[in-house]
């Protein structure tokens, strides 16, 4: 697969890749012109459905299917929200796309809005991306001047304007209904579903929320065809009729203890070991990998022996991870303490929990308190079971929360404790030789007076 020719990242190495002239010289907005002439919105959705494109934002929901949920008889308006609140730890593919190739993103958005009949699109941009903001704003202005945006785009009766909305720095704003609430100017508390955004979303109108990378994939599918897209990646499992497969190119972000951290575009399904060794130069200082996060912190961890699984939508599931997530691979080498890793992970999710649902608000906080105590040398073996009990009982998978943040918080706990339990047991026994077998906590009154 070394000879794979990048598609999504084809432009980024050009001088001035973020300018309209450079983008147009490389064939930019050619697809938009052609699609507006040749295809109806329904036709576009049909192509996307045929391509089996799955959302790149984390959940891997089939994009064509999502679009087809929009009510056909609704008088409108329809909205498109572009999720550029890339805040999953270890993930930075949207950032590179928006900073170095904003026109590709915009062309993808215009095409997707055409398909979903949206006349207004909002890019919900992560606060921490000031360069992306500047580049997107410049690119949008260029597009408005050129007639790619605004009333009657390229003489077609389709009109669209795109607004960039800068977030205020919260992980939960990446959850689609949290994003919608935040766009409406409210506290980003994810909404209870149903109704799904496709039926009642932004300003209570039908809304599609898609990730930046998904929309750029839409552009290339419309440019090169669904068959081209399906020639890349892992085909669907013939034994599982409900598996839509993992087709197309994917941006993999690699960070952590590797020689060459960075972003690389590869077909979906590249084995994790190959990604680390061939594309990231292996581990730093020739060390061995201890744990690898396959797709952003919330997907959990894999051990060294599990690295041969392919990084497609179903691969990480086979080793107990939450899924491909955002394909932000984080590599930890053998020197790193899993107790520190888990403490840091829990601290992040407790900090980012929106606080709406009781199990997540309190559970994540409790987990941090326990890990802090374990780190401080007052751990009990019983704490490990408690941590697992918390993790097994929060999230939308058991059904105890509104959104998936809690699942994201639970998976690192579950996978770390199940795969690295020995390390935790050793740590607790060594640091708390007198009390590691204690069963019950000190009485509440003793805590009050401490």
């Amino acid at each position, binding site marked *: 697969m070394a000879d794979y020719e990048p598609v999504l990242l084809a432009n980024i190495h050009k001088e001035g890749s973020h300018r309209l002239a450079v983008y147009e010289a490389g064939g930019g907005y050619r697809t938009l012109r052609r699609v507006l002439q040749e295809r109806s919105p329904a036709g576009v959705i049909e192509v996307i459905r045929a391509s089996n494109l799955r959302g790149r934002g984390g959940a891997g929901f089939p994009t064509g299917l999502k679009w087809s949920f929009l009510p056909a008889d609704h008088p409108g308006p329809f909205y498109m929200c572009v999720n550029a609140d890339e805040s999953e730890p270890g993930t930075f593919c949207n950032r590179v796309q928006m900073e170095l190739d904003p026109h590709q993103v915009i062309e993808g958005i215009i095409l997707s809005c055409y398909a979903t009949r949206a006349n207004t699109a909002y890019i919900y941009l992560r606060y921490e991306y000031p360069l992306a903001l500047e580049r997107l704003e410049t690119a949008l202005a260029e597009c408005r001047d050129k007639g790619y945006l605004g009333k009657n785009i390229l003489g077609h009766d389709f009109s669209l304007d795109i607004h960039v909305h800068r977030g205020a720095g*919260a992980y939960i704003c990446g959850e689609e209904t949290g994003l919608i609430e935040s766009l409406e100017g409210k*506290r980003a*508390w994810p909404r*209870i579903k149903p109704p799904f955004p496709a039926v009642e979303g932004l300003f209570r109108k039908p809304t599609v929320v898609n990730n930046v990378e998904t929309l750029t994939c839409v552009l290339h599918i419309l440019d090169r065809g669904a068959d081209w897209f399906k020639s890349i990646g892992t085909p669907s499992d013939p034994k599982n009729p409900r598996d839509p497969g993992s087709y197309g190119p994917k941006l993999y972000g690699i960070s952590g203890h590797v020689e060459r951290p960075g972003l690389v575009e590869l077909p979906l399904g590249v084995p994790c070991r190959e990604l680390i060794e061939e594309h990231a130069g292996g581990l730093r200082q020739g060390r061995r990998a201890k744990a690898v996060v396959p797709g952003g912190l919330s997907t959990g961890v894999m051990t060294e022996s599990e690295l041969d699984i392919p990084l497609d939508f179903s691969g990480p599931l086979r080793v107990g991870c939450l899924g491909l997530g955002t394909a932000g691979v984080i590599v930890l080498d053998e020197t790193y303490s899993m107790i520190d890793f888990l403490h840091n992970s829990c601290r992040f999710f*407790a*900090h*980012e*929990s*929106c*606080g*709406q*649902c*009781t*199990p997540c*608000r*309190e*559970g*994540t*906080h*409790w987990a941090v*308190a326990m890990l802090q*105590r374990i780190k401080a040398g007052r751990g009990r073996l019983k704490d490990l079971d*408690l941590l697992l009990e918390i993790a097994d*009982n929060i999230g*939308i*998978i*058991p*059904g*105890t*929360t*509104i959104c998936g943040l809690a699942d994201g918080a639970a998976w690192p706990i579950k996978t770390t404790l199940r795969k690295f339990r020995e390390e935790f047991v050793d740590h607790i026994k060594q640091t708390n030789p007198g009390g590691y077998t204690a069963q*019950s*906590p*000190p009485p*509440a009154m003793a*805590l*009050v007076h*401490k």
Partner: protein
Amino acid sequence: MTSDPVVLIDGRELELSPGERLNAIQAAERVGIQIPHYCWHPGLTVVGSCRMCLVEVGTRDAATGEISMMPKLIPGCNTPVRDGMVIVTNSEKVQQARAMVEEDLLLRHPIDCPICDKAGECLLQDYHFQYGRDERRADIRPFTSRRRDIGDVTLFVDRCVMCSRCVRFCREISGTNELMVVNRGAHEEIDVAPGFPLANNLSGNVVDLCPVGALGDKDFLYRQRVWYMRRHMGVCTGCATGCSIWVEENQDRIYRLKPRENPQVNRWWICNEGRYGYPHVHHDQRLAQPLRRDGQVPVDLDWTALPAELLERLRSAGRLAAVLSPYLSVEEAYLLATLVRGIDREARLVLGPVPVVGEDERFPNGFIISSEKCPNRRGVEEIIARFENGRITALDHFLPELADGQIAGVWFSGGYKNANWIEEEKARPLAAVKLLVVQDLFPSAISALATYELPAAAFAERDGSYVNRNDHLQSVRWAIRPPHGVRPEGTLYWEMLGRSGLYNAREVLREIAAEIPYFHAAGAGVPDVGLNLKVNSLAERT
């Protein structure tokens, strides 16, 4: 053939009427199963965030009867019941989820029940006993209970379970948006913006909505343990809206008034004016001794001989008139009218002064605080109309008539909630009356002129019915006994009419219903939520 939708809840079948919209919590309640919940309230939007109402949901195949359950737990509050739905509320999975939510909520709760006003009616307490764990597994230090003044109520920050009912109330019902959630995750708190405290005329409701002790009523705070109080059904007499209330008392002392759910009048809410409008009942200036002011020195009277004495004086007075206060109940107004007409067949019946303050205050959800600050103008008007052939005279038009001295005796019923409610100037024409009987709560310019000054009963001390601005009649019984020396109006009239036994408001209402078409619908008894006389009489006519 279509049959009514059937839902199966823990093996019990519930038949729904077609078109009925219930969620799983409401449906379970119908078959006597409690699904615990904090954040859901029938009057507010659904947020589904407390996760206490998690249940298992499945479907039953109509043809085969086979049941297939969904793998996830689902919040009952956001689950509309459909035909063929199966709801399980007592499985091990559900119980485990509830125990976990309870454990979570108590992690940082101060557990200061001994000094918490809510103890005894706190959902956190109740659910913990029913669904929680016996042991505490966490060694997180419970927070001390921080107390913060946020305006009309006191916030005990750390007792909060973040159900956000109060926040939604301020957005959806009062429309004033004062309360909000600040911070994130476990640091979340309810708060107000600096300089914009919780201050609206419905704010007391957030205390009732709060399932735990986080919002404290400043009026009730630390005054009474809730388990010492008994509650009685009542009707608020603060304005013409006539909200249904609970009167909560201990040993004949009212400690608080709370809204009583009544979908036809006030739904779940009452205004602050009504809620805190009871102190006059226990005011030390209240009249409590019947007096006669014939000569120079007022004479204290005894109730035993008083009815006969009053009758005697009225009979010998000559032309009579009665001022029927809009604070009287329908029954009392009717008895008084009957009484004076029984003595003088041409006695004038006059509507007492109707206090009006400002304009109606309307809230976005439809709740109205009426500008008319008395409970029963409509009811009293209808009684007067019956006796006066439709003519209703206001006091202002009646007083000048006294100048010619034809009317020799006036019975003036009061019930006004403050002293000196009428200006001396305005009351002056009554000085010309030879026999003036005044029964009122407080001394006023009128009671000062009275030949007989009689103490009246307050709203919680009487039996009777009130008709609100929308012709909705509600009947209540007394909640507390009147102070020593006070005889409720109804009892006095009953005795003076020579009726046997104790005053029986229900019997009087039956009589009224038989005699006056307007009250006809009330003849068959009045349900707890009352009944609408207009709607019912229209229905009968068609």
